[in-house]
């Protein structure tokens, strides 16, 4: 269980999070939604212990801010929104950093790194230099690195957690699906997944629970279908959003709608 109560974060002179609370269970994919600047990344950083935060945080009963760094590293892995690599490591070496953080060494670490790379569809990229990959490929290497760190969704200390900040932002549609399926599988096997997302349709497809942020506060929280509602999304995001159901089995389809329908969208749809 990840439980956060009354989280307050100040960055610089500004208060970014205004005492918000959050609960996420292992076995579920919890998605954090919200407009740019609403505090999603900050919330993630608060619960991973990256920024000083007021309030109570418990990850399976332990305050992540009090755990030793290497203990925490065995319970959760983090995929940051932005990543930069300073030196010319190979793809395998980058992913191996994750396996080594979990205590694997030598050939075992390399084997796990290769498995994680295969999981994100990057088998055969081991010998390439990370800095010479495309943006989306780099993002998938980073995901593989996080996966290699918490490879087994359940450990002796309890469930393991994946914190993913916009894991699909730079991916093509097929790899977006693949990454979301990896996250859903991880949860199905007993791990915890918390993902910050902007894609509402993917969220509707894969999230078990949704936390909707607005200006550093929780605007709505609950099972996906209860939070993904047209009126609420329209109010928080400040644009028209249609939520429809289609397909078999029925799925939620979330579509943003341009204000001036006549001009662009209408014309393109054939009038």
């Amino acid at each position, binding site marked *: 269980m990840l439980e956060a109560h009354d989280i307050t974060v100040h960055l610089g002179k500004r208060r970014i999070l205004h005492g918000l609370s959050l609960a996420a269970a292992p076995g579920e994919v919890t998605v954090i939604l919200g407009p740019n600047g609403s505090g999603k990344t900050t919330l993630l950083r608060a619960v991973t212990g990256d920024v000083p935060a007021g309030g109570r945080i418990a990850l399976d009963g332990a305050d992540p801010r009090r755990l030793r760094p290497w203990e925490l590293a065995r319970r959760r*892995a983090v995929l940051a929104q932005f990543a930069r690599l300073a030196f010319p490591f*190979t793809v*395998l070496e980058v992913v191996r950093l*994750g396996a080594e953080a979990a205590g694997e060494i030598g050939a075992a670490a390399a084997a796990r790194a290769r498995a994680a790379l295969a999981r994100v569809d990057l088998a055969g990229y081991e010998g*390439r230099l990370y800095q010479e990959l495309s943006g989306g490929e780099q993002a998938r290497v980073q995901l593989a690195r996080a996966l290699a760190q918490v490879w087994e969704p359940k450990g002796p200390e309890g469930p393991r957690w994946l914190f993913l900040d916009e894991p699909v932002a730079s991916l093509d549609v097929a790899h977006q699906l693949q990454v979301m399926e990896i996250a859903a599988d991880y949860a199905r096997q007993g791990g915890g997944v918390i993902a910050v997302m902007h894609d509402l349709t993917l969220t509707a497809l894969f999230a078990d629970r949704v936390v909707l942020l607005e200006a550093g506060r929780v605007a709505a929280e609950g099972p996906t279908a209860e939070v993904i509602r047209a009126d609420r999304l329209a109010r928080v995001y400040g644009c028209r959003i249609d939520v429809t159901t289609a397909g078999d089995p029925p799925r939620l389809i979330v579509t943003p709608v341009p204000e001036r329908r006549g001009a662009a969208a209408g014309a393109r749809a054939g009038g």
Partner: protein
Amino acid sequence: MVALSEATGPVAGDRRLRARRATLALGGLVLVAAWAALATGAAGVSLPQALGRLVTGAGLTLQEQVVLWEIRLPRLVTGLCVGAALAVSGAVMQGLFRNPLADPGLVGVGAGAGLGAVTAIVLGGLLPPALAALAGIYTVPIAAFLGGWAATLILYRVSTRAGRTSVATMLLAGIALGALAGAVTGLLVYAADDQQLRDLTFWGLGSLAGASWPKLAVAAPVMLLAMAGTLWLARGLNGLALGEAAAAHLGVPVQRMKNLAILAVAAATGAAVAVSGGIGFIGIVVPHLLRLATGPDHRYLLPNAALLGAALLVGADIVARSVIAPAELPIGIVTALMGAPVFLWILLRRRGVVDL
């Protein structure tokens, strides 16, 4: 792709084996350099003599024994230690700043250490006698360490914001620190007597000519200890390549690691400067070549840098002693002649790949 994976060893992308082989090869290189250094010199002790009789001393004239034991050997050991310390300091500093251009000599740490040493030489006499007696021969190394440490701290504070280091700021801060140290050193020159002046000139260009067993006895343990300490940093520096936040996510105690890294760099650079003055470019060229050859994994980079740095500096010293024999060049000139073009080449190659 195929060529690359073949080139990187049995498992694609895994360069550990290659790095271990490099360690063996570099160890051999150090031995060769050491052998050559003992055999080369104005006093004309030949290689077989040097090698065959070094240990026993038998068959060597008294003068030859003195040359070997009191001049060449301390000079060799100093060269090995200083070369290793400078190269490792450079590699650690680059890992800490997440940038291949950081080097204690370039960004003012060497200047800070030099300033400390110069201050100790000129003003050491002003210390309270009790304290001076206590510090004794350690005064200059301690002052060099403090100077290097202060410079590293200032540098890190000035150029790193929220875990990100601005290289432009770092290099500019290095220029400012270097200028400050130069100015204060210039001031101290007016307060110095003749003997002190000779010592001061020595700091400017760097030289192993002043090497002696007593100096080594103080500086070598510091350099060796600092280098040994950096082995504990290797994994943390690997994580740091992904940024401070990512390193913390990987379980690296980032703040503690940074403090230790700064301490180790200051100690190693300070001790190196205390015995040999300002020798540049070893710290930037050696790690760079090794990253090209075997990759940036610090668990192999740091020990290999120690070996290559040691071999390179001893080699440079042989050149410094040979080209205008029987006179000799300051070794700093030799390393600058070798290192500065390599540095420019790094800049040229990296343009567009890494943002400065």
